[in-house]
């Protein structure tokens, strides 16, 4: 199979997912039962993840390198991101299969948009030229705008989609202007060419720094770092919950993947990435306000989906700590592989934990009454312990409680930052303090699940029955526990991907 593709082999996962998406569009026209599409989407995307794993030890041939030119990267980082993106999208599609049927929203577009957005995300993860970056980012974003607006009769969905679209396009325009200035400053559009030009001192310095600032701002919008996070809670709340899950896991993973590539490949120059004067400093500050802003705003939320949206903002802050740490070592030591691998491990752990939390929220409601507020969850643990169990596991993992994936994710990021010496100490302190604040709103979910009772006369949300949702929960629950009990294999996987940056 691999020999058959020749030089195209490193692109196998992306090509497969793109063709799978085209196939699903045909199948959509033929089948009546749209839930079968959910299964098809799941199969296509998990095979995409499987192919990426299968290519892990395949050497990249010189023919491939020549074929892709500077446009597309063929390395382990892109395969790692493929696994995280396809895995997250596959689980979100399963959640969609249960949710859309229960709420009578079933239309095939949902799955097709999921597959093509995931394709955009995979391309974004391997983009190695500002042009590829822009086109892939728009492929991802345009699909997701559609997913948010999916429930056409809901004013909330339309409003969430509108806000997301307006701010998302604004951010793209800023990113694009940065790319154009970078092209002007260096005369190249491919990452390696730009980096070489900056390294050689050919680039116009002021223009390069301005371009870097614009690109970092544009990408900060996409990873929803404070103060560029305004769209996140609205879009997350307005979207149907499986689409929210997709945004939380896929869009964030892909955006962080490309942020890593942009920072460490394009702007990896000694001057631009100096710990005290370059972008690590800026990213550290961004991480601190993101963690504080996300966690503090999450406390006052009354809607669980909104709370999870702010929690995802806070998690973006923890990930940024890892990125800042990777470049904060001694001048001649290069990037810290430990810190980079902790960032990648965090992305995996974050993906499975969020699928678990959002999936449990989907499972807790049914047609007529969705579970959205804390009150809707009151007493659920007593009435339906089987529904509360995955919820507890997901919340504990997001909180960072051992033995879950989330615990080790936080632990690795913070210990990597600690190794960087006293310069990062304040950031670690902010991270620990803000996660202590975070424990309050996560525990509040558990309090409502087990210690409160619904108000007399209130409409109680009845859990739905769906094999699709249950299987997504079982899969993500397995990985949350597995990554928490035996994290070494996954950490090794992340470390091998982190070595891409050398």
């Amino acid at each position, binding site marked *: 199979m691999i020999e058959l593709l020749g030089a195209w082999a490193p692109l196998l996962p992306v090509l497969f997912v793109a063709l799978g998406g085209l196939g699903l569009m045909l199948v959509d026209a033929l089948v009546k039962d749209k839930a079968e599409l959910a299964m098809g989407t799941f199969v296509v995307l998990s095979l995409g993840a499987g192919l990426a794993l299968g290519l892990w030890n395949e050497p990249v041939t010189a023919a491939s390198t020549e074929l892709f030119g500077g446009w597309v990267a063929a390395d382990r980082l892109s395969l790692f991101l493929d696994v995280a993106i396809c895995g997250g999208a596959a689980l979100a599609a399963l959640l969609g299969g249960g949710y859309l049927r229960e709420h009578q929203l079933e239309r095939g577009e949902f799955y097709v948009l999921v597959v093509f957005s995931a394709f955009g995300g995979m391309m974004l993860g391997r983009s190695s030229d500002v042009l590829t970056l*822009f086109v892939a980012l*728009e492929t991802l974003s345009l699909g997701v705008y559609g997913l948010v*607006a999916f429930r056409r*009769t809901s004013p*909330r969905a339309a*409003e969430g989609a509108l806000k997301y679209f*307006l701010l998302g396009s604004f951010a793209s325009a800023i990113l694009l202007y940065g790319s*154009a200035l970078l092209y002007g400053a260096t005369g190249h559009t491919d990452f390696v060419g730009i980096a070489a030009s900056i390294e050689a001192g050919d680039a116009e310095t002021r223009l390069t720094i301005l371009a870097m600032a614009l690109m970092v701002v544009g990408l900060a919008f996409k990873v929803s770092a404070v103060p560029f996070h305004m769209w996140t809670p609205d879009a997350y709340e307005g979207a149907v919950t499986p689409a929210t899950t997709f945004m939380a896991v896929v869009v964030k993973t892909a955006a962080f993947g490309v942020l890593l590539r942009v920072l460490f490949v394009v702007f990896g120059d000694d001057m631009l990435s100096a710990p005290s004067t370059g972008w690590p400093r800026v990213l550290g500050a961004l991480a601190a306000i993101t963690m504080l802003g996300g966690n503090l705003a999450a406390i006052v*939320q009354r809607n669980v989906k909104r709370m999870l949206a702010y929690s995802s903002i806070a998690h973006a802050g923890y990930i940024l700590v890892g990125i800042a740490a990777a470049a904060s070592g001694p001048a001649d030591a290069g990037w810290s592989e430990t810190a980079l691998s902790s960032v990648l491990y965090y992305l995996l752990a974050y993906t499975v934990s969020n699928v678990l939390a959002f999936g449990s929220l989907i499972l807790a409601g049914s047609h007529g009454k969705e579970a959205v507020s804390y009150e809707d969850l009151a007493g659920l643990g007593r009435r339906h312990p089987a529904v509360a169990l995955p919820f507890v596991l997901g919340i504990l993992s997001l909180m960072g409680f051992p033995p879950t994936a989330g615990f080790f994710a936080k632990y690795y990021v913070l210990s990597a930052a600690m190794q960087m010496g006293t310069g990062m100490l304040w950031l670690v302190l902010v991270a620990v303090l803000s996660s202590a604040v975070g424990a309050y709103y996560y525990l509040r979910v558990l309090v409502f699940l087990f210690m409160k009772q619904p108000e007399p006369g209130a409409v109680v949300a009845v859990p739905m029955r769906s094999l699709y949702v249950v299987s997504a929960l079982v899969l993500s629950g397995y990985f949350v526990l597995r990554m928490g009990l035996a994290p070494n294999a996954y950490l090794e996987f992340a470390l091998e991907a982190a070595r891409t940056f050398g």
Partner: protein
Amino acid sequence: MDIGLGTYLSLAAILFGIGAVGFLSRRGILLQLMSIEIMLNSVNLTLVAFNRWNPSSHAGQVFAFFVIAVAAAEAAVGLAILISFYRLKKTVESDRADLLKG
């Protein structure tokens, strides 16, 4: 007056600024969409101007074509979302998008 690279870049920067300020200050969603288009077109001007003064490859001009194509796709999706919003709320003012907050 000598028309050089700087002239084009300044014009593009001014256009980008007009677009950004328009996006942030206007409340009509259609006007905000137009502001985004102005920003994208100022980027095109920047790219083409840089390519004119650095003609070793055509990367800048090719890039500009991609931006035009993507802007068209973006406008299509954006107007669809706008129509869906208008049907439900009977307005195209972004101030009236006030259901979701907190």
